[in-house]
């Protein structure tokens, strides 16, 4: 029997209209939460939105989310074989699923 991480993930465009969705992810020792999210996109639901670019180096700083209510980088938070609740940053404007508006105001399209 292989171990499983159960990821309970916030889906939706804003705090009011969203819902929690649960995915079981095969667990391997040493994986990151981002590994789990990428597994879900490839094997379960490619529509899941998450921001990342460097994948593993913790250099791009894009994959910030809330894990059980605490802010983490998905690429350095370890996947563990239990239920883990993943939501968007609650202090940032929600964009979609786990994606929030994290760019400084001077780097956004609408604002100058």
């Amino acid at each position, binding site marked *: 029997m292989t171990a499983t991480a159960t990821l309970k993930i916030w889906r939706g465009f804003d705090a009011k209209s969203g819902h929690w969705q649960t995915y079981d992810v095969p667990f391997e020792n*040493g994986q*990151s939460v981002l590994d789990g999210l990428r597994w879900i996109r490839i094997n379960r639901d490619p529509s899941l939105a998450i921001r990342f670019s460097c994948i*593993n180096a913790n250099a*791009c700083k894009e994959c910030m989310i809330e894990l059980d209510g605490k802010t983490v980088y998905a690429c350095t938070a370890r996947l563990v074989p239990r239920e883990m609740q993943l939501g968007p940053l609650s202090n940032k404007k929600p*964009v979609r699923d786990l994606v929030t508006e994290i760019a400084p105001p001077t*780097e*956004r*399209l609408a604002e100058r």
Partner: protein
Amino acid sequence: MVRAPMQAETDVLVIGSGAAGMYAAIEAARAGCQVLLVDRSLIGRGGATVMAQMTVAVALGAETPDSWNDHYRDTLKSGRGLCDEALARLLCEEGPECIRQMDGWGVGWARKNGHIAQAMAPGHDRPRCVYVDFLNTGPAVSKTLRSVVSKTPGIRKIGDLCVVDLIRGGDGITGAVALHLGSGAPVVLAAKATIVATGGLTRLYGRNSASANMGGDGYALALRAGASLIDMEFVQFFPIGHLAPRLIGMDPIMWDPFRYKLGGRLLNNRGEEFTQSYGVAEDGKYVITRDLGSYAILKEVEAGRGSPHGGAYLSFEHCSEAALREAFGPVIDRLAANGIDLTRMPVEVAPIAHYHMGGIVVDAHMQTGVAGLFAAGEAVGGANGANRLSGNAITEALTFGRRAGRSAAAYAGKMSAPPAVGRDASAALDLIAAGAPARDLNTAAMVQTLQATMQENVGPLRNEAKLRHALGVIDRLAGELGDTAPAGGAFDMQRFEWFDLRNMVLVARIVAEAALARTETRGAQQRDDYPRTLPEWAINQVVRLQNGRVVFSGAPARTQAQAVAR
């Protein structure tokens, strides 16, 4: 949804905010231009620069006497006969100025006895590589340039903008059409001059050491805009990318600095050093070049002497804990958090896609063959020939970025008003608008399939059967992708990945076709069916689009005749 798209106007548009793009933006703004710096990720944090761990090659002469001529000679030698000499010369000759300018901006190059420290790296004839401790070169370079960009008047920054196509007017390139990721809306960027600084194509490979935003999109943009690409078969694999045990929060190329400082031993599964069997005895030092290192490791694996996960062992067990801690400070604790104690265990390493020597054809002013279109950094092809000398990538980004910024500013300065884009943007806008409803395309799985196929078949060890297999998979993916993106709104990953795949599939096909046509072994291209380096292949293959078809030129006359006969 018939609504006029958002518009922005500028003198110089810079696409990509790694070191090349930021340096270009700074230089163009200092020349008096309004600059628009766009990136698909956060400004100054994506791309390859931020991932650089250590070396930046530059003939400062701070450690030992040195001149750009010596750096140039090593660069040409590493390039295995294929370097564009004007570009290689620019990199080596202007490198010292850019490195000193970065020093003045406070990047913090490591010091030794009061001077900038320069480390020995494989392929160099003397200690030439500057760095920022510990494993901090890329982040420090990015941070420094971000800060200068912010302080330089005239630069507007917009992140979350994924450029879909360049706009081609009657007299040249007049800007770009982008997709804003956050809203899913199209944006027209009108510009007098445009610089492509989007980096390379390492995302095409399953194991890679750069950001997921480097899928060769700049090559595809330039190609569709009428520019040519060169040397597309030459993908550099970094020999000792981390393989096992699983390590999080660290870049997989992190072992390079350890090897610079402490040597380290590459071992097969018998515990034997093996590089001497491939012509390079290391003897506790780090001397093997990237092409030969990748070849040696994969050949050991093929012969059944690989490590459990399919690579080689890298061991620092002969180093004391004190020596390791002196060389790497807090990094030792980060390794311990991952369960790795270098004094007691080796790690496993294997080749990992790291850099692309090929790219957009430019002259020494970074001008492409298309008016108004410039390129900079890794997006440019030719400076590094068939194999890049270690440490040349950041130097290339800085020197080429600076030159591109100046050239684009001079070009833009000759125009009075921003170009009228008008109907020239309509093809790209139509592509964005024409969303096919509810296509259930698993774009994430398609990316993974492409990456696995490229890794296995268009990696460091190639042959005709593998390359033809890859081309078959690429054809199938192109068919699945079709001509229309799935419809979608804010941060729709399947929609973005469709636009990414549109570029990735085009560029992957070009890499595989160029590799297939080159019936020899040279630098990063190792063909087991053509194991020799052939004098008639000491030439560059160039590719462009003709009536929507990919056309190669530059192959030796004899080979072209054979290709036609087949």
